[in-house]
């Protein structure tokens, strides 16, 4: 009886994982072992009931993965995505922490309003907000016009279609994901700890570095992962704001699939991206567990 209950409890999450992760993954994995073909669908072999499953399996090979390893493009694209993701996570933290801190220190009756203001941008489509940045950052855009009008610069700055625009886009888009977890930890922070530090001879500043910052670590880590993981595979922001020099794995994946129409290679890139993303996701999971154990 107990056994049955346990199975019933465990079954739904496992079924969920099976249907929404494992089955799609296996389909993509199978395509990554196939060959390109001008047909519908554009790869071979496909399952033929007459010849059976063994005939299908015998035609699969790891050719596409060998192709990826022989071409430095894919490795460089991964490294470049990693760089962009790390830098933009750091920048998001730099911008997000002071916001979260100010929110946590604000008077009680202001907090719901401030919280609302952080969430408010989500009411507009993400795509439209990224598109709006094109209008701000372009050569004849609002930013350049403003800077030129106040006489700060004489020639327009080239920001759109460079990596700088990608950083701006990622920081802007993911800022709430950084602010909210940090705010959650800072808000719960016991203010008396800071007072005690000051009473014991700390200045306000050193109290911040010695007390507030270490205690906000769980929120900072959660925020960083929430920004880093999606930024690594980001496609829309580099596509809209980045230029020809922006190399990201999300863009390469799109190119393989939609421009080169090479589903097998695109699937192989996707399989590798997934394997690479699993590492930070596992680290995140571990961190969450540790945090829960700590509480």
């Amino acid at each position, binding site marked *: 009886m107990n056994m049955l209950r346990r199975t019933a409890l465990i079954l739904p999450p496992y079924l969920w994982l099976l249907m929404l992760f494992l089955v799609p993954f296996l389909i993509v994995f199978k395509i990554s072992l196939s060959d390109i073909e001008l047909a519908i669908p554009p790869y071979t072999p496909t399952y033929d009931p007459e010849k059976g499953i063994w005939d299908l399996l015998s035609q699969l090979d790891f050719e596409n993965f060998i192709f990826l390893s022989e071409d430095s493009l894919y490795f460089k694209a991964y490294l470049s995505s990693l760089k962009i993701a790390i830098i933009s996570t750091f920048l998001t933290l730099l911008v997000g922490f002071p916001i979260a801190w100010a929110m946590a220190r604000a008077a009680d009756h202001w907090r719901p309003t401030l919280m609302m203001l952080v969430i408010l941008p989500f009411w507009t489509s993400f795509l439209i907000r990224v598109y709006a940045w094109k209008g701000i950052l372009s050569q004849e855009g609002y930013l350049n016009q403003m800077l030129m009008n106040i006489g700060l610069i004489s020639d327009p700055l080239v920001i759109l279609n460079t990596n700088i625009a990608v950083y701006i886009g990622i920081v802007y888009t993911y800022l709430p994901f950084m602010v909210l977890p940090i705010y959650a930890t800072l808000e719960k922070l016991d203010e008396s700890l800071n007072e005690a530090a000051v009473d014991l001879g700390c200045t306000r500043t050193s109290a911040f570095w010695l007390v507030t910052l270490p205690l906000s670590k769980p929120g900072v880590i959660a925020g960083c992962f929430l920004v880093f993981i999606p930024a690594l595979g980001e496609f829309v922001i580099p596509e809209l704001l980045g230029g020809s020099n922006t190399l990201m794995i999300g863009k390469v994946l799109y190119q393989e699939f939609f*421009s080169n*129409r090479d589903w097998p290679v695109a699937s192989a890139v996707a399989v590798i991206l997934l394997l690479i993303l699993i590492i930070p996701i596992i680290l995140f999971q571990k961190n969450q567990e540790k945090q829960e154990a700590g509480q």
Partner: protein
Amino acid sequence: MKKSLLPLALAAFAAPAFAEEVRVYNWSDYIDESLLEKFEEETGIDLIYDVFDSNELLETKMLAGSSGYDVVVPSGTFLQRQISAGAFQPLDRAQLSNIGNMWDVVASRTAQYDPDNTYSINYMWGTTGLGVNVGKVTEILGEDAPLDSLALIFDPANMEKLAECGVHFLDAPSEMIPAALQYLGEDPDSHDPDVIAKAEPVLMAIRPYIQKFHSSEYINALANGDICVAFGWSGDVLQAAGRAAEAENGHEIAYNIPVEGALMWFDQMAIPADAQNPEGAHKFLNFIMDPENMAAASNYVFYANGNLAAQEHLVEDVIGDPAVYPPAETIENLFVTTPYPARVQRTVTRMWTKIKSGT
């Protein structure tokens, strides 16, 4: 009298709930949108109109199967590939009463992609050439700037200077590589990997100066003065010129067919093999082949069409513009391409990825 109208009015409200649908997938900025409403009014069919900006993207959807569209518009070479993959159904000419309006000069050319035009009708055709902001480019390169030569975009000395005001290239290897080969004096339609490889150093030498590879953004970017040169499609550049003139922002945009020769392409309307509503799709094709409708579309987007009867309805800005309807001696200088074999295709796409990403 008033009473008897009520049921009719009710019926009119009730009808759309069960209305028939036609789903059309066409290039962006490629129709006068009032035609879409006109089609709905004339036929009572709900028209769902989506747009794309690359043949490659369309082919991905076609080869995935079940695209959900009833009419799609691939260019000649892509049409030919997709026909061989079994993506389209033959047209039923009995349902196309307007087919007699088509222009035999264009039809004979499109027949090389689609023998006897079995699967498709020509929608529009054009060339791939140079879109320039005349003022900005002459300011940078001087009065004798080669505004109508491929040297403008393939000579690194010119591109280095133009980089500061912005250059966009089409994100279309099947058009950019033939152009580079033409600049070198090679056969632009070569399928020989060794010849195709010669395009790589030309494109790699200028890639640092290209702000973006994109196939539709350049219309607005040219019109707003964000970029000063685009290698793009004839009508798109002319639309940019129109938008700049309308905005009176001081940017003069011109479209030039390169003197070295340019790619001539044909966009063909075809019906996917698995279309949900082939009958409605035929109605749409027939509607497009109506001379007035076709002329309205061309007058709006500045592309030539394959419809002879439509020519009398074209405005002078379109039929009289040599950039839209090139004179016979220019047409002689235009070239066409044929699809790459699968093996060569991979070389081409890999080269393109290298050019776009720099690695």
